[in-house]
């Protein structure tokens, strides 16, 4: 985009404008997303509890209710408790909100050669998980700086919970990474092209089960009920945000809904096919890059709708869970993580490895052939097995025996490609 703008503007201004547009879109997505989700939460909770939820504001369905709430929050007094550490107290909501938004920088909304993504990070999964873990810092600061025992209790619980749940969450995210052979979210989404049978959740029984472990851990790591121990109205007044009011309070909620959205987006990209719909409709309609830019663009926008739709569905499931299950005790939360989620994630990870090792090149619980995109990864698997049985020679030395200048150039060029496993396998083939 910056290159396009540079035709009309000076280069330095073009880069700034391009960056501002990207950031503006992301902030809008999070803020508008939060508006919609808060309304949705009210409606869903209402229906689950046999109520109607908001009905009046904005005509039908009360769809402007959140905006009215926002205006109310704007007019509230910005209170700071007398005993508080004022600077940290003021800064904490922004820390949470920044961490929540920063995760969206590396999340793609449509794939292909020119993905819809702010910054195409080569290690997207890792980046998103790293940034999502930072949100807890704002909560801890808020809890500490409030000088209130309720806040401090909430913050301590949140810290313990989030730090523990990052372990199984990371273990679950490793499985799609392994199957796609890449940490790049764009590649992970693209290997699931075609029918829904290619989605990684349906790859084998272990991935199907580990998806639910991932979803549980994601719910816990974004601090949603039944894991919302940091807020726990029945015990801690309001937990870490007891002392907050007005806009600062709403920043925490924007951060929470932003993180819910981003973990759901991550789930939909890692397991649920990302921007690829259940049926390859864009291919049937010819909305691909081969048929010109406009067709490609429409196809990409359909992909965006797909991935956001799946993520919203994920958020709705989180709300459904929230209004269905009672809150756990803190020791139960920790036991769920350490005694159930972590061992289950590890076992399913091993199961997925064993399945992929014994049935490479198959998808949909081993019933169907993998598409070409996944085949290239599974070739790496079978090659690795073949190499392990053939000879114990390290692959690097094989590579070096043919280290004439052009092949090394090729090897270097391949490094710009996506998957480490792919590279390993192609290098190996070059060596033979």
């Amino acid at each position, binding site marked *: 985009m910056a290159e396009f703008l540079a035709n009309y503007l000076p*280069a330095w201004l073009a880069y700034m404008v391009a960056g501002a547009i990207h950031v503006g879109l992301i902030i809008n997505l999070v803020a508008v997303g939060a508006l919609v989700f808060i309304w949705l939460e009210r409606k869903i909770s209402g229906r689950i509890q046999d109520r109607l939820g908001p009905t009046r504001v904005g005509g039908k369905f009360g769809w402007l209710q959140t905006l009215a709430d926002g205006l109310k929050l704007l007019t509230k007094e910005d209170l700071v408790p007398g*005993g508080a550490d004022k600077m940290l107290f003021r800064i904490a909501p922004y820390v949470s909100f920044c961490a929540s938004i920063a995760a969206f920088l590396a999340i793609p909304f449509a794939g292909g050669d020119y993905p819809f993504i702010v910054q195409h990070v080569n*290690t997207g999964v890792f980046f998103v998980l790293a940034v999502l873990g930072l949100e807890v810092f704002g909560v801890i600061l808020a809890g500490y700086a409030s000088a209130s025992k309720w806040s401090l209790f909430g913050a301590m619980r949140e810290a313990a919970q989030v730090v523990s749940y990052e372990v199984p969450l990371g273990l679950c995210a490793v499985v799609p990474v392994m199957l796609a052979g890449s940490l790049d979210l764009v590649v992970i989404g693209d290997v699931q092209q075609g029918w829904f049978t290619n989605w990684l959740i349906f790859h084998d029984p272990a991935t199907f089960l580990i998806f639910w472990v991932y979803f549980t851990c994601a719910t816990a790591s974004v601090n949603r009920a039944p894991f919302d121990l940091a807020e726990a109205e029945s015990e801690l007044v309001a937990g870490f945000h007891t002392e907050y009011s007005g806009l600062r309070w709403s920043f925490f909620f924007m951060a929470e809904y932003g993180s819910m959205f981003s973990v759901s987006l991550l789930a939909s990209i890692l397991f649920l096919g990302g921007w690829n719909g259940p049926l390859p409709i864009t291919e049937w309609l010819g909305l691909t890059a081969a048929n010109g830019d406009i067709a490609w663009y429409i196809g990409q926008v359909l992909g965006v709708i797909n991935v956001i739709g799946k993520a919203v569905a994920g958020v709705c499931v989180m709300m459904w869970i929230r209004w269905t299950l009672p809150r756990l005790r803190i020791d139960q939360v920790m036991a769920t993580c350490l005694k159930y989620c972590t061992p289950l994630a590890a076992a399913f990870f091993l199961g997925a490895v064993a399945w992929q090792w014994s049935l490479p090149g198959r998808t949909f619980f081993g019933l169907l052939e993998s598409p070409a995109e996944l085949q290239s990864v599974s070739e790496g698997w079978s090659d690795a097995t073949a190499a392990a049985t053939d000879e114990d020679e390290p692959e*690097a030395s094989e590579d070096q025996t043919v280290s004439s200048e052009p092949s*090394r150039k090729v090897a270097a060029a391949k490094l*710009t490609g996506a998957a480490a496993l792919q590279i390993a396998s192609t290098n190996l083939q070059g060596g033979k």
Partner: protein
Amino acid sequence: MGDGIYWPTFFFLLFSALACGFALAVVFSRNVVRMAFYLVMSLASTAGLFFLAGEDFVGAMQLMIYVGGTLVLLIFGVMLTSQKQFVEMKTPAGQWIVGLVTGCALVALLWMAAFETPQWQPISRAEAEAVAVQPTATPIGVALTNGRVDQLDQPDETLRGGMSSYLLPFEIVSVHLLVVLIGAAYLARAKRRSPSAAAPG
């Protein structure tokens, strides 16, 4: 082209100023939690420098390990151990001197290393723009499992064998960490007296 702000330089200066500024704030702050906050900001700015250099993987590592892990634990320690509401720390003069000497020695060492390594000399803007940004995780991953792609040009045949991969050091480190984890769990476990043993309280 050419005129105006060159953004990489601008952001380099911004992030390095933030990192240095917050690092100084850590030193001069007295409140422990504020120190932790400034330290987080300083480390996060360092991660920003890594991202600016196109080293996404290293930057994400910095965020995950230092900003995420270490400081959550630090705050845990502070919160669990503090006796008062907001802990204030006074640094005695002796510690100032020791700290100054250590810090200055490290800065002098890094300064010399940074400015006397021939490969690290500053390059012109045209050269900098010509450098293609390579994805960073792939060489690291390949180096971990297969062989070091940066050493394919190694002329000495005998040295190539030792350049195969980092798998062994990685394995040693992970086993070491496992031992530490088990040790921590052993030390922190709830100590229950068994009813039969008449151990003194």
